């Protein structure tokens, strides 16, 4: 028998009921003349147990309402964790929320958490923050688990070697009622990043390089395992950044095998087992990495030593160039992508052939589940220290959680940002998705550490360029994109 991948191992250990078991049941019932249908599970679906269900105010209200209407219970409140992040203000929280719809949505989250007995990290709880930041921060995210959330960036948790993916509201309700999901097993894909990253090259550049190579559909129907020296040498924060944007490559989830870096990061966090339990858990976690003789359905290799700082210029995350490069000429783009490229450039108000460093920006957003962790803020602070935001540029830092914010304040980073002219906000998703008032005005151009440069994503008519925290900081003080490595050297 050939070996199993990390993905296979997590999947296999969470199957509550398989199609084979179901087929046997259907056969037995048919023979007895009691059933003439396909049973309750079908030929391809497996029932997977879910170890942790993260919920937030935007994609849960209709699911709770569904439970109420059907008279169903929330099966495992003790495996469910709620926070408010997508729609919370990042300023003036003590004042009444000026948007009545937002206020209602947050109030409904509170009411549902109370009614169904779910722990909620509410707006004034220091542990409140972006759902994909608080799980790892508190130690709820552990290797080998299945984690779901009504949010596509749930893939972030895959950095710990847990199978984590986004689901829609109907599936949120299904997990609430049953603590399981019906899934057909996705295919597996290995993305190996070899060699060593150059100085000043970040995890964000790695994932933007991967998406640039495999495209926004490259991972459809697959779970990616990121492997290779570059991935092994990334910090946990870096691995989270990489896994976070798996969905931008179309993948169902992203994974990194747990190792010493993982265990060191986890040890001592509030929800991580300690004492004898730590030893037991560690033993289980160490069995998880992909066996040497396991195969993948698809394998991609990328030379990590060739990766440079990336900047997106278009309206999907694969439309990107390195900072020393330029926007492609239309005749350099494959014929079937020309029309889409033209449309993207019209929206972005950019000309083919423009040098990346000649693109000026109006706004800088530092934050999100992609790059809102302490390491991201430290790296950006290193760039802005003693400098000032360029004339005409507005810049803001939105820490990923209340605890990240507190830590950054204790380390003096908040003052570095404030002194440099950045706004220092409370934790939330903020301008990453433009649900709360933190949005671009029509025509404004941002350097953003978030994950999506879709049309209007950060506000109607807004133009988004995705970059690393270091590159965003460099753009903030230069007023245009610039190679951060030159500022640091």
């Amino acid at each position, binding site marked *: 028998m050939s070996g199993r991948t990390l993905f296979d191992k997590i999947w296999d250990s969470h199957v509550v009921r398989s199609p084979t078991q179901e087929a046997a049941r259907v056969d037995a019932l048919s023979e007895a003349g009691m059933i003439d249908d396909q049973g309750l599970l079908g030929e391809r679906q497996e029932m997977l147990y879910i170890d942790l269900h993260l919920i937030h105010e935007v994609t849960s209200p209709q699911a709770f*309402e569904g439970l109420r209407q059907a008279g169903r219970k929330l099966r495992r409140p003790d495996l469910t964790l709620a926070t408010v992040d997508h729609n919370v203000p990042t300023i003036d929280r003590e004042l009444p929320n000026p948007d009545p719809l937002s206020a209602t949505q947050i109030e409904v989250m509170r009411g549902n958490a109370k009614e169904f007995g779910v722990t909620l990290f509410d707006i004034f709880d220091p542990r409140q923050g972006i759902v994909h930041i608080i799980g790892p921060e508190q130690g709820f995210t552990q290797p080998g688990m299945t984690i779901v959330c009504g949010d596509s960036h749930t893939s972030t948790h895959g950095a710990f070697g847990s199978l984590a993916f986004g689901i829609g509201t109907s599936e949120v309700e299904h997990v609430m009622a049953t603590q399981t999901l019906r899934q057909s097993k996705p295919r597996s894909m290995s993305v190996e990043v070899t060699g060593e990253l150059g100085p000043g090259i970040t995890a964000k550049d790695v994932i933007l390089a991967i998406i640039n190579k495999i495209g926004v559909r490259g991972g459809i*129907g697959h779970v990616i395992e990121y492997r290779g020296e570059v991935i092994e040498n990334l910090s946990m924060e870096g691995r989270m950044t990489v896994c976070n944007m798996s969905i931008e490559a179309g993948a169902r989830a992203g994974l990194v095998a747990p190792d010493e870096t993982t265990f060191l990061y986890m040890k001592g966090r509030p*929800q991580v087992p300690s004492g004898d339990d730590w030893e037991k858990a560690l033993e289980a976690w160490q069995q998880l990495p992909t066996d040497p003789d396991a195969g993948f359905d698809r394998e991609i290799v990328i030379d990590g030593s060739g990766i440079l700082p990336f900047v997106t210029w278009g309206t999907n995350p694969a439309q990107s160039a390195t900072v020393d490069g330029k926007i492609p000429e239309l005749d350099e783009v494959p014929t079937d992508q020309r029309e*889409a490229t033209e449309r993207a450039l019209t929206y972005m108000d950019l000309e083919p052939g423009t040098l990346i460093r000649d693109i000026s920006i109006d706004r800088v957003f530092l934050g999100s589940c992609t790059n809102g962790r302490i390491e991201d803020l430290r790296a950006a602070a290193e760039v802005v220290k003693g400098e000032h935001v360029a004339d005409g540029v507005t810049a803001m830092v939105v820490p990923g959680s209340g605890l990240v914010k507190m830590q950054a304040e204790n380390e003096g980073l908040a003052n570095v940002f404030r002194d440099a002219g950045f706004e220092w906000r409370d934790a939330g998703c903020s301008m990453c998705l433009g649900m709360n008032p933190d949005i671009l005005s029509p025509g404004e151009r941002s350097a953003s550490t978030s994950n999506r440069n*879709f049309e209007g994503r950060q506000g109607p008519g807004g133009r988004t360029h995705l970059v690393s925290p270091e590159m965003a900081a460099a753009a903030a003080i230069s007023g245009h994109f610039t190679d951060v490595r030159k500022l640091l050297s």
Partner: protein
Amino acid sequence: MVQGKAIPLDRANVDTDQIIPAKHLKRIEKTGYGEYAFEAWRKDPDFVLNRPHHDDATIMLTRENFGSGSSREHAVWALDGLGIEALIGVDFADIFKSNCFQGGMLTIELSVVDVDYLMALASDTPHTEILVDLADQTVSVVGESWQRNFDIDPFRKYRLMRGLDDISMTLEYHTDIETYEGSRPDWMPVTV
């Protein structure tokens, strides 16, 4: 079975932020999203949804990777609000496809050549009706001989045909779930 006129939305990688922008996700209901569907693109008078002859279409023709990005099921509710009952495209983003299934919205994948044909047809003769037959797994053009087969997970088909509820079917297995729960290591994290 869905029969109706089709809207040719001839763009690849249409993301769920276009289908329903985040600022309209503040509602706590599943309805009321149709009027905001494709809000930004509808500001362009030439956008295909603004052409009156597509007003009562029930099928939308799409390209590659339709529904990419955010997991918001509101995207399906918004399309439903537009009166769309089936999507025919080259392929669909994973989470979106799953959400469509949950909401009873058919997602039909055809080859690029076949999608090209239907796009041109819907664009040139917008009154042409397309018929999607789930039982037979066929797409055909009403009044013409053009017909194609499509694939669907047999269980999804079975479920859609009977309008069955996933949750109640899964709950039939409550003893399996309990057995599984009994085998979970006790060091695993809990939230309360």
